[in-house]
């Protein structure tokens, strides 16, 4: 790697100040599983790395009156071993388990994955279906943004250059919401997703679906919600036919690309299968309640 400077600020304020001072030549260093690789491949553009992994405000998993808070610098390995997450958001745990391998999960952070903002970000769909929000800290304090609006384009979030992702919130109402996450890659271990899919829904007393959510990864410029498919489900009894219809609608909503990993057509087939399967499993969980 080409030379750069390294700083490990102790607080969010310090970090934000460093970012503001160094402008575009500074980069935030989280687990480094993406950034260090980038620096090895495309050296030279970065003069300062601001390591935020030890900032206390960015750490920790906790349940509050508001909901579940996951610090941006919480590692996947920590999520997998967190009793709170295993109990309240098992599909975020499941999604974390599909990221890389043990060694990368012990380095990589959930916030880093969101900030990198690749379409295939494994953590995104399971968070999107639980209506996750993120806290962003900047020079003038912090703001809260729905995760859906956080993603702007491929490798582009709504973060300003001097801003920092602090934590991720799952609203209290969605803790324990019946949900399912599935990832499809080119192999079982250490796979990049060809398609990620997650669903979450409740069944009301009459057995009708309410608050259905479907999120898809790697099939659009950013991780996306299949809102038309969701609307098709709302208020209806979850018959097999209905779930298949929703899956077909999701296929029309996604915008996959052809690349060397898979064709757009095949990705659409995966969206069809995986949307159905995540919905079907979510319904199954909901009806067992």
């Amino acid at each position, binding site marked *: *790697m*080409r*030379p*750069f*400077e*390294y700083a*490990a600020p102790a607080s969010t304020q310090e970090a934000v100040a460093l970012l503001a001072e160094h402008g575009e030549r500074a980069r935030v*260093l989280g*687990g*480094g*599983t993406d950034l*260090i*690789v980038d*620096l*090895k*491949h495309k050296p030279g553009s970065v003069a300062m*790395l601001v*390591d935020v*992994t030890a900032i206390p405000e960015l750490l920790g998993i906790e349940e509050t009156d508001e909901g579940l808070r996951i610090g941006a610098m919480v590692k996947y*390995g920590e999520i997998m071993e967190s009793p709170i997450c295993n109990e309240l958001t098992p599909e975020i745990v499941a999604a974390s388990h599909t990221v*890389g*391998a*043990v*060694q*990368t999960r*012990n*380095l990589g952070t959930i916030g880093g994955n969101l900030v990198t903002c690749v379409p295939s970000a494994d953590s995104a769909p399971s968070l999107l279906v639980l209506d996750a929000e993120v806290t962003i800290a900047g020079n003038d304090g912090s703001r809260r943004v729905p995760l859906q609006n956080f993603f702007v384009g491929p490798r582009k979030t709504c973060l300003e250059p001097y801003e920092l992702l602090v934590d991720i919130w799952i609203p209290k109402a969605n803790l324990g919401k019946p949900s399912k996450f599935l990832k499809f890659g080119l192999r*079982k*271990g*250490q796979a990049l997703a060809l398609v990620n899919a997650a669903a979450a829904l409740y069944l009301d007393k009459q057995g009708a679906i309410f608050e259905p959510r479907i999120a898809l990864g790697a099939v659009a410029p950013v991780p996306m919600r299949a809102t038309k498919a969701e609307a098709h489900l709302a208020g209806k009894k979850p018959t097999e036919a209905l779930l298949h219809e929703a899956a077909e609608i999701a296929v029309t909503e996604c915008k996959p690309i052809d690349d060397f990993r898979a064709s757009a057509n095949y990705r659409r087939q995966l969206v069809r299968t995986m949307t159905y399967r995540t919905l079907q499993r979510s319904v199954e969980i909901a009806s067992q309640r």
Partner: protein
Amino acid sequence: MLVQLKVNGELRSADVPPETTLLKMLREDLGLTGAKLGCDVGDCGTCTVIVDGESVNSCLMLAAKANGHDVTTIEGLATSSELHPLQKSFEELGALQCGFCGPGMLMSAKNLLDKNPEPSVHEIRDALSGNLCRCTGYTKIIEAIQDAGRAMTGAGAAA
């Protein structure tokens, strides 16, 4: 910058540029060549070491990030009186062939057994999925980890 680590129980330090990875520092500055460079981007696992009880890809971790932390490498797996049960089982059962994946593989295996002394075959496969091996098909490696696990829990091992 001065980076100080506790490596295999001993305090070691080196003056390295900030862009130095932990792997480079271990191999070039501390003379610990057990961890290998296989892909340099965290895909192959040959650089696996344990930092504060968690296995990591040392090629993706800046040495600066490890400053002040506990690092265990393959060179610290045995004691001066005994091989680690994993080392025994790997040797006796012929688990490694070319051996290049070995140091990383053993550190991942140690990380697993430290947390889960009696893993199932699936749990072993899951724990090793970040360590590529091109020689063995993983079969004997998995057998050796089970064998070592049995030895460590006192259930008796073949090796």
